[in-house]
């Protein structure tokens, strides 16, 4: 490995991670600002951990409601 490439590779390991984290945090800041500036619908901002976990585990991961909430869609196909 020649000197220039060795220096470049050292940069990828020793310096670039700090730049990566900085760029990532700037991006997260910009994205958060964009979300927070969206119009509100008047509902509260409370988060119920139990309801949230219940929804994520049962509905998102295990697809609980996919085949039961709209039975007409599937029954009409037969």
């Amino acid at each position, binding site marked *: 490995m020649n000197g220039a490439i060795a220096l470049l590779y050292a940069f*990828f390991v*020793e310096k670039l*991670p700090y*730049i990566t984290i900085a760029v990532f945090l700037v991006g*997260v800041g910009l*994205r958060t600002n964009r979300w927070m500036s969206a119009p509100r619908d008047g509902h509260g901002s409370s988060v119920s951990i139990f*309801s949230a976990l219940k*929804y994520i585990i049962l509905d998102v991961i295990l697809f609980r409601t996919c085949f039961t909430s709209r039975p007409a869609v599937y029954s009409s196909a037969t």
Partner: protein
Amino acid sequence: MRGFHIWSAEMFSPLGEGMAEFMVHTLPVYMGWLFIATQFLLLVRRGVLENRQLLSFYNDYLALILLLITTILGQGMRIFPPEAIPAHTYSVVFIPRLVVLHLEKVPSFHWFFLHVLFTQLFFMYIPFSKLVHIFSGVISSALYGSRRTEYGI
């Protein structure tokens, strides 16, 4: 994952030496090929369906190509012969005491360092692209789950 001690032979040793060998050395190679094939398929699918069933933005391609390059470099690092096999682990210190990679082998330099570069480019690109759903998907699902009663759903 092995470099960060999340996946190791010790984890699978109760299942037998053969199983540990398979989980640590064989399965990751096949998973790598499968991951590359999946992304390649998605790229071809996007190209074929473009202007017919979908309209892509440039970042739809950029996200996929960036991930594909990173994966190919990672797989290259895995399948090409290592530079050396040290007596102890080969440590790569990205951020001291915070992000340190402990490798059993010294990987092929070019594949490894280019993989390091593209992984970081991918990480930088996450909040600026649709890949942000890695985080926002959980947040929005949690908020929706919390408020379903409020919304009458």
